[in-house]
């Protein structure tokens, strides 16, 4: 067949979100690919230069519509580094609980969409059904299901409602019962293995030189997790292990993320069980009139990889002088053309889904 360029996106059922992978196809095999993004670009970094820190906080939830609080927490940690404020112990434990619940919810969305790319419609429904429970926990804790606007500079907005702790512990036990079911439906199914083993293989040194991080890098075999490399909040007091894969194909990305759901569930339990008493905001902290003239680079482990914020204060106003948001998926999506050559037309959605695209954080 003559070679032709096919658009996998932006209006395409297999792309989660608005982005376009142009694919040059010879028959069924892919010869070359190009990524086209920018459909959801809102200029968040320019807006940030015109708003005070607190007024920019709610926008952080919109940075990634599936893992909202992870970006808000990252931003508040960056500002706290800039202002040299440390939130009280209890607030840090609450932040860890919120981050890990957010990771489970984000991985469930990914698992559902990954199944849908292979025609496994049951997987979406189970993924979304179990995510509902976590969204209910969030709506009890923060007042909103998705746009929580919960972390504040110097702490968190409010303390845990009294019923939250045992409901969250029961929800985590419920989650542990659900994971074997996901494995039955995907892990132990031959069809799933046929569609994911050896698909979109990303060797380790290519992953490092491309700048892939998080589950993509761990699937290629390097045990690297910002929570272990550069422990923030109270992660160094909680014990969890970092799952890795062997040869960086679709199968390893699935096993790595599924294992991460288990680890996050146990992390939530640990954080809830040994959470100290105390107030949730740094006592007597007031936002200063002027941000100190410093630059901060704060990294955190976003469900998709290494999210980071480069914040520059200019010592004159209380607005950030420059805010650079390092998005892990931005690198993963632009890196796809480097390892998609030779794949088949049906593998393209699996490879695109493997990168777990969340377009809001890619286009900023």
């Amino acid at each position, binding site marked *: 067949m003559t070679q032709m360029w*096919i658009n996998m996106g932006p209006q395409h059922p297999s792309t989660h979100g608005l982005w376009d992978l142009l694919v040059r196809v010879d028959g069924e095999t892919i010869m070359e690919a190009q990524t086209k993004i920018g459909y959801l670009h809102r200029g968040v970094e320019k807006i940030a230069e015109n708003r005070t820190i607190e007024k920019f906080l709610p926008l952080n939830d919109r940075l990634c519509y599936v893992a909202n609080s992870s970006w808000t927490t990252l931003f508040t940690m960056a500002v706290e580094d800039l202002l040299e404020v440390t939130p009280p112990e209890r607030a840090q434990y609450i932040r860890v609980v919120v981050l890990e619940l957010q990771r489970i919810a984000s991985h469930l969305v990914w698992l559902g969409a990954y199944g849908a790319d*292979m*025609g496994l*419609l049951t997987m979406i429904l189970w993924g979304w059904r179990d995510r509902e429970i976590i969204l209910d926990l969030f709506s009890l804790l923060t007042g909103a299901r998705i746009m929580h606007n919960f972390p504040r500079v110097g702490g968190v907005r409010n303390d845990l409602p009294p019923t939250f702790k045992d409901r969250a512990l029961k929800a985590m036990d419920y989650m542990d019962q659900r994971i074997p079911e996901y494995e039955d439906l995907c892990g132990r199914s*031959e*069809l*799933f293995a*046929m569609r994911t083993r050896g698909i979109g293989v990303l060797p380790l040194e290519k992953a490092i030189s491309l700048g892939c991080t998080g589950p993509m890098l761990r699937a290629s075999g390097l045990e690297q997790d910002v929570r272990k490399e550069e422990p923030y909040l109270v992660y160094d007091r909680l014990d969890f292990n970092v799952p890795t894969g062997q040869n960086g194909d679709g199968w390893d990305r699935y096993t790595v993320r599924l294992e991460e759901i288990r680890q996050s569930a146990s992390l939530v339990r640990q954080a809830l069980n040994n959470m100290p008493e105390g107030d949730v905001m740094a006592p007597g902290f007031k936002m200063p009139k002027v941000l100190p003239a410093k630059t901060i680079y704060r990294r955190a482990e976003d469900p998709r990889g290494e999210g980071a914020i480069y914040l520059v204060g200019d010592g004159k106003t209380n607005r950030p002088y420059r805010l650079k948001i390092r998005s892990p998926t931005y690198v993963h999506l632009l890196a796809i053309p480097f390892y998609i050559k030779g794949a088949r*037309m049906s593998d393209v959605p699996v490879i695109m889904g493997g990168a777990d695209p969340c377009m809001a954080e890619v286009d900023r």
Partner: protein
Amino acid sequence: MDLYSTMHGLVSWLVNGILGLLEGAGMRGPVMQLVRWMYGALEHAITVAVVVVLILVIGLLMVILMLWIERKLIARLADRRATMLGIMGIGKGTGAIQLFADAIKLLLKEDTTPRKADKYIFAVGPSILVGSSLLVLVAVPMSDGFAASDLKDGLLFAMAVFAFAPFAVFLSGWSANNKYTLMGGMRSATQMISCEIPLLLSIAGVVMLAGSFRLADIVHVQDRTWFILLQPVAFVVYIVAMISEIERIPFDLPEAEAELVEGWQTEYSGMKFAFAMMAGYIRGYIGCAIGVILFFGGWSSPVPAYTVDLPWGGRFSGPVPELWFLVKVLLLFMFLVWVRAGLGRVRVDQIVTIGWKRLLPLAMFNLALTVALMAFSDDIGTSPPVAGAAFVIPAACLTAAFWRWGWFR
């Protein structure tokens, strides 16, 4: 008393009754002679028309029932509630009218044709597909009497017309001037080529046992032992090949939502899309019907015939063969829906591998086995356990051998 004669009696009683009434009312002129002459000439044609319309209506009702079963079952398998639509409380929770709502919606939708598409083939594609699928309905009997036509080689005719559809899919996919539909059409052709031969070979085994292509004979031979007990391997090959013929989930690449938007149906909307969807379910019904006739003993029921005295004096005897046949068809269809809920989609090269390197050798082996055993044992009709064991044991060891080498990879 088969369907044709009953219908012929009904039609002639009706027409003569009306004509008699008219003549009684004093309408004897030359017009009446012309009408009687025409009826004399067209008597046969009218009866055939009535029979065919009856079979068509039953086929379409079955399609609607299967659509509803698919929606509800695939939902319950995935722990959700499917459509709960009901009118003013009637069928509140059953979603009964969802299907009619869909049909009406598709009828009302605008029927667009892409600008640079080949308009005629684009329009003809779905009609060929539905036409060839409906044509097979004629050849599939529902019980001894109840068949539009009981050809001597009914099975051959059915398979020949059934294999016509991928040609229509390929045509309409290519004519829609859209990259996705072109890929969809190509895939349908590859899939048909790779899975047609194992399908026919698995049927050949059954036909050899039954000795005739006539579907009614195949059913009669299976009175004591269903062929699934004698031909388990053939059944596995038949089901896998039929799923890929009908283009359902594990092998629904021509219409793969994930990568090809909607495969070859991408450019269709309104009535044409309804045709394409309906064709899918008609072919599903036919696949299951032939499967039931070949392997599950058609309309012969394990329940011994019984007679019941109805309270108002009538008598009712035995399980109605037609209903028993439809129940079995629906059960086989439910298995297909269950497979759809559990499994994902395979790639095109994997279908070709399965078709050529897995199903074909399996079907050939089964055929050779059947020939060998028929040559040695003079009468298959000896005690069923012996015949069953003679078939099942080699099949089991074959599957175990294939299993150990992970042949599905």
